[in-house]
């Protein structure tokens, strides 16, 4: 993946999309930064594993709200990025006072809890750890931001949700370097901080998790012997001249590898041998060589003979009753590796590096990516668990439901009607809003101005703020009233996606209808026009109590007797009317 260019990935992904495999897999990406280029990359990675991906990207910066509606996926990614979090509070984090930082940390921890509660039925949640690396910091000591990030990460590592997998973003940044990971050109305009290289390496970071959750994790690792488990060729050099001792410069790498292999066998991964040798020579090494770490107990199967290795591996798979593609194969020879690859393209191989000092880390990377050998998170957690439990209970008590969470935000709506100064913003919103937009009619500033100056057309807006910040003018409703003043038609209703999921729309419509009632309107007509992006509001008017009076494929018309309308019962949103 990392050696491919982005265009190549797009092309290969498109090619593979024509195939249809037996396994379907759905994932949703929730994020507070733009990560759209990740979609095709993860799709391609899944298709390579013969899985049909269904990847959806959630609404921008709507992680908590979206987590409610995402629980039916196989997997949810959470990119809760520190960049956007701190941008919302200050241009320079170090200038914040301690109290605001504590309050912010508390808010984020509560949100993490809420997200995980909402996603508790989701089989797997991949949550990225927080990283301070996007902002330059001095080489000495710790900045407030680093401290803040460390406390959030401590919190994450203390969580006990069984479906949670934490991806350590800092490790990816170590590997690639800051300049390769972040590209701030598109951050101001599109909130997209990550490079394509970042996403490609990210795929490597989540490989073992993906294999696990798709049931494609490797179950066995089969080693060649000569120059793979020990240095030298036993049949030629003799048992006394091969090396695998921790105390010799040539043997050390092989000693390390044997320790790893032994650990694998002790942790549920089948370890076997496949070698072109005389069985008696290999047996003698295993039984008698003083530096041998692996013992017969660790080795579940041996194919030591002069047959070709592809056939041997096939037999090993049959005997172990696993697929050939569940096997990992380690060998030093180009010839054997290529032969096996050619016969079984899905069997993953690792070739022992020519420089033996690269062997240990290379093998570890291979093993970590392909097996479920991750230091048992459960074990690591247990000690920390009790300590953290206490803190978390407090946070959870704060918000045991979505409603109490929303009400804790102390949302305020500033509602305006026909406000001249808002013309540019209103027009811009009609141009830009796609998801929460009932009719998706685009208006120029001149048109909006005409509505505002007319007696029968009204432009309602709401500016939204909460205790953590100001989202600005983000809701628009345009209503036309007929000549007699009895029938009002909702021409447009739209809301920026940043504030979806907070029940703002219901409270806002209460106010619009209250006004219409006060000027003598009896009937309200409205319509929904379906587009590629506004499916989430397809039943919005039904929710408000409207009846459908006409319906076609992509179009619904509604009507409502205004006296039948029932106000929402929401009390936690404060209204400030400016008309």
């Amino acid at each position, binding site marked *: 993946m990392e050696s491919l*260019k*982005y*265009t190549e990935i*797009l*092309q290969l992904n*498109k090619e593979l999309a024509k195939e249809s495999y037996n396994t379907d897999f759905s994932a949703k990406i929730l994020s507070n930064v*733009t990560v*759209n*280029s990740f979609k095709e990359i993860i799709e391609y990675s899944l298709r390579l594993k013969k899985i049909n991906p269904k990847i959806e990207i959630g609404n921008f910066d709507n992680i908590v709200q979206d987590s409610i509606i995402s629980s039916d996926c196989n997997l949810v990614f959470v990119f809760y990025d520190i960049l956007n979090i701190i941008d919302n509070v200050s241009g320079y984090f170090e200038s914040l006072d301690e109290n605001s930082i504590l309050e912010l940390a508390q808010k984020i921890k509560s949100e993490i809890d809420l997200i995980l509660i909402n996603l508790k039925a989701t089989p797997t949640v991949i949550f990225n750890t927080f990283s301070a690396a996007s902002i330059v910091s001095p080489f000495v000591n710790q900045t407030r931001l680093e401290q803040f990030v460390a406390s959030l990460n401590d919190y994450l590592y203390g969580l006990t949700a069984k479906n949670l997998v934490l991806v350590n973003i800092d490790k990816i940044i170590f590997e690639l370097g800051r300049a390769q990971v972040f*590209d701030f*050109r*598109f951050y101001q*305009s*599109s909130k*997209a901080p990550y*490079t*394509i290289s970042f996403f490609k390496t990210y795929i490597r970071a989540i490989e073992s998790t993906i294999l696990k959750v798709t049931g494609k994790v490797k179950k066995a690792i089969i080693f060649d012997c000569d120059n793979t488990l020990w240095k030298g060729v036993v049949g030629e050099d003799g048992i006394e001249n091969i090396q695998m001792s921790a105390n010799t410069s040539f043997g050390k790498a092989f000693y390390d590898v044997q320790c790893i292999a032994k650990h694998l066998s002790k942790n549920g991964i089948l370890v076997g041998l496949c070698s072109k040798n005389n069985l008696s020579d290999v047996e003698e090494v295993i039984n008698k060589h003083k530096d041998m770490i692996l013992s017969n107990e660790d080795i579940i199967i041996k194919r030591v003979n002069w047959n070709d290795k592809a056939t041997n591996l096939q037999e090993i798979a049959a005997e172990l009753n696993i697929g050939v593609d569940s096997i990992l194969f380690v060998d030093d020879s180009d010839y054997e590796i290529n032969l096996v690859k050619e016969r079984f393209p899905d069997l993953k191989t690792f070739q022992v590096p020519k420089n033996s000092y690269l062997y240990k880390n290379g093998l570890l990377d291979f093993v970590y990516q392909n097996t479920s050998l991750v230091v048992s998170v459960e074990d690591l957690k247990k000690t920390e668990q009790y300590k953290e439990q206490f803190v978390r209970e407090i946070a959870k008590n704060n918000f045991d439901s979505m409603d109490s969470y929303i009400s804790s935000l102390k949302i305020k709506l500033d509602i305006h009607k026909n406000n001249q100064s808002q013309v540019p913003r209103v027009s811009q919103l009609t141009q830009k809003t796609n998801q929460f937009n009932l009719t998706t009619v685009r208006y120029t500033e001149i048109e909006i101005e005409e509505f505002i100056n007319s007696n029968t057309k009204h432009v309602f807006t709401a500016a939204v703020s909460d205790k953590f910040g100001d989202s600005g003018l983000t809701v628009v409703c345009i209503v036309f009233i007929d000549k007699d003043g009895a029938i009002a038609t909702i021409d447009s209703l739209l809301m920026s996606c940043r504030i979806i999921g907070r029940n703002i729309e219901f409270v806002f419509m209460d106010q619009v209808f209250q006004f219409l009632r006060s000027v003598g309107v009896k009937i309200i007509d409205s319509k929904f026009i379906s587009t590629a992006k506004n499916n989430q509001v397809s039943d919005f008017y039904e929710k408000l109590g409207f009846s459908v009076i006409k319906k076609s494929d992509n179009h619904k018309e509604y009507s409502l007797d205004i006296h039948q309308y029932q106000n929402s019962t929401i009390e936690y949103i404060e209204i400030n009317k400016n008309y």
Partner: protein
Amino acid sequence: MENQKLKILEVMSSVFEVELTSLNEESSIDNIENWDSLRHLNLILALEEEFNITIPDEEVGDLVNYKLINLIVNEQSK
């Protein structure tokens, strides 16, 4: 030169998910429906990787048709 043209069109084809055969020197943001702001960002990244160039900040927003892309690729490849 023809090679470069083909490469640019290939990048556009994969980023915007349109058939290569439907693209030509007249292709632009006005006649490619999928060309939205997010894909535009991917286009820039893909072009940079493909031609091993860096597209200057102030040019990013201007690359709205094949001819302008070709121009900037020529300029930056020097």
